[in-house]
């Protein structure tokens, strides 16, 4: 079994259907691309089941917490794939009245504009958090977290190493991949010829990334950093010359 942790690039944002489809490809097409995400490609190739616990906007803190909350579901032989995100994201808990449990809002560089825009159109809350609080959170974010990226990145790596060694000790295999990979393959903006300004992966990007993971699995690579990626690049197909390119179709 594969357990996948990460942010929107693991969840499949841009290709999966959401409550508000205005920012994903379903504002442009009726063709269903929800299955064209790397977790599905990986599952098809390996024949193994996949539990996708990726969450859009998630911080590395949240990703670590999700792993800790799930550790008791893992069994010997499982593979845990951890997609690191930008180290400058901050996750902030709030009580979700509908779910009767706590959930997180994820704060990142995108949040400041987003809150301002929502504020202008009269929305006074971000989920259950008042904007007066949100502004304090954003200010704290801007003045502290966002300025210490290198420091937090190094800490994130140390913490993940600790978690990975624990998972390895009970017979789980782990692959950690870093967020520089976001820009290494085709995004939705290119795929749709600029019609949608969305930099999440296109179906081709997802397919390419699944080949990166398969290469890592077959060659016992446990951490895909920039060096590891450069070494595997000659064996991969980032320009889709050897694989069937998936065209963007606006209708079925």
């Amino acid at each position, binding site marked *: 079994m594969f357990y996948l942790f990460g942010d929107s690039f693991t969840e499949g944002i841009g290709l999966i259907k959401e409550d508000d489809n205005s920012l994903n490809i379903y504002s442009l097409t009726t063709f269903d691309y929800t299955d064209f995400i790397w977790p599905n490609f990986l599952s098809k190739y390996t024949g193994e089941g996949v539990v996708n616990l990726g969450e859009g906007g998630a911080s590395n803190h949240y990703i*670590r*917490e999700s792993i*800790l*909350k799930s*550790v*008791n579901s893992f069994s010997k032989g499982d593979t845990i794939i951890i997609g690191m995100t930008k180290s400058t994201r901050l996750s*902030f*808990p*709030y*009580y979700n009245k509908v779910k009767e449990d*706590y959930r997180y809002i994820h704060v990142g560089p995108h949040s400041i504009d987003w809150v301002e825009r929502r504020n202008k159109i009269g929305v006074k809350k971000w989920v259950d958090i008042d904007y007066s*609080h949100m502004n*304090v*959170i954003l*200010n*704290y974010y*801007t*003045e*502290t*977290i966002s*300025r*210490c*990226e*290198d*420091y*937090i990145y190094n*800490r994130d790596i*140390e*913490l993940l*190493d*600790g*978690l990975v*060694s*624990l998972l390895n*000790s*009970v017979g789980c295999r782990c692959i950690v991949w870093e967020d520089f990979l976001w820009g290494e393959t085709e995004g939705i903006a290119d795929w749709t010829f600029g019609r949608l300004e969305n930099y999440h992966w296109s179906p081709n990007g997802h397919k390419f990334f699944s080949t990166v993971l398969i290469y890592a699995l077959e060659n016992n690579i446990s951490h895909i950093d920039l060096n590891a990626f450069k070494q595997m690049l000659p064996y991969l197909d980032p320009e889709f010359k050897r694989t069937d390119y998936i065209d963007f179709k606006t209708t079925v």
Partner: protein
Amino acid sequence: MIYTYGDSFTYGTGVRDNTTLNGKLFKSYIGQSKWSDLTWVMELKRLTGSKILNKGLGGVSNEFIIYKLLKDLSQFTKGDIVIVGGTKSLRLMTPAGEGDYSNSVLLPITHDVGEWKWESASKDTYAFDGWEVSKEQIKALISYYYEVFPKYEKLYETVYDEQYSGISEYLDKTGITCIYWDNSAWIEFEQIVEWTNRRNIDGHWSPNGHLYFARILKFCLDHNVRRLNKNRLIELKECVPMDFPYIKYTTLI
């Protein structure tokens, strides 16, 4: 090997030696070096005969304790014992720094952050107890700490409780015994304030508090108790005797 993680209650503040926390001096009330190992960590070492490595640090947050624990996971081996003391969820460790931020540090923020005496280090920065932080950062983190953070105290308790429980259960799976105790224990054992008859207003444990807590932990190890919260502690105090001579404050000064 026993590894202990936590804040000042694990470190042994008030008993172990003089400690500086956020610029404030916490004196050791023992005054005699031969008594300075009357902490629960040292007592547990005597009770179990195990080697012990104390990783407790005063003033730290739950996030920091989890950080230390996760960093050390690869050191533990089957048969080790890990004892983790949770702290108040209203402690915050925030990255801070100046310039290119390459030398960022973790700044521990506790309830008295507003009372800290920051001194002007340069035109745009303030310094305090080794930390140098911009004025904007201080303003932002103080508003965050006082205006927003406390409103989510209960949530953070749940968040950290789940993280500690996850680590603890998983360590158990790998043959490493893990006991997690939360900060409800702080008021369940004799504190320096009552031990010194209010001469020293310090909520950390007295030597008697430490010695008794060590016995509770020994009982937990012997009886497979892995989680200590308020209710469990009250139950255990009824069955674990205080089988050591009470140490009077006056006998030590």
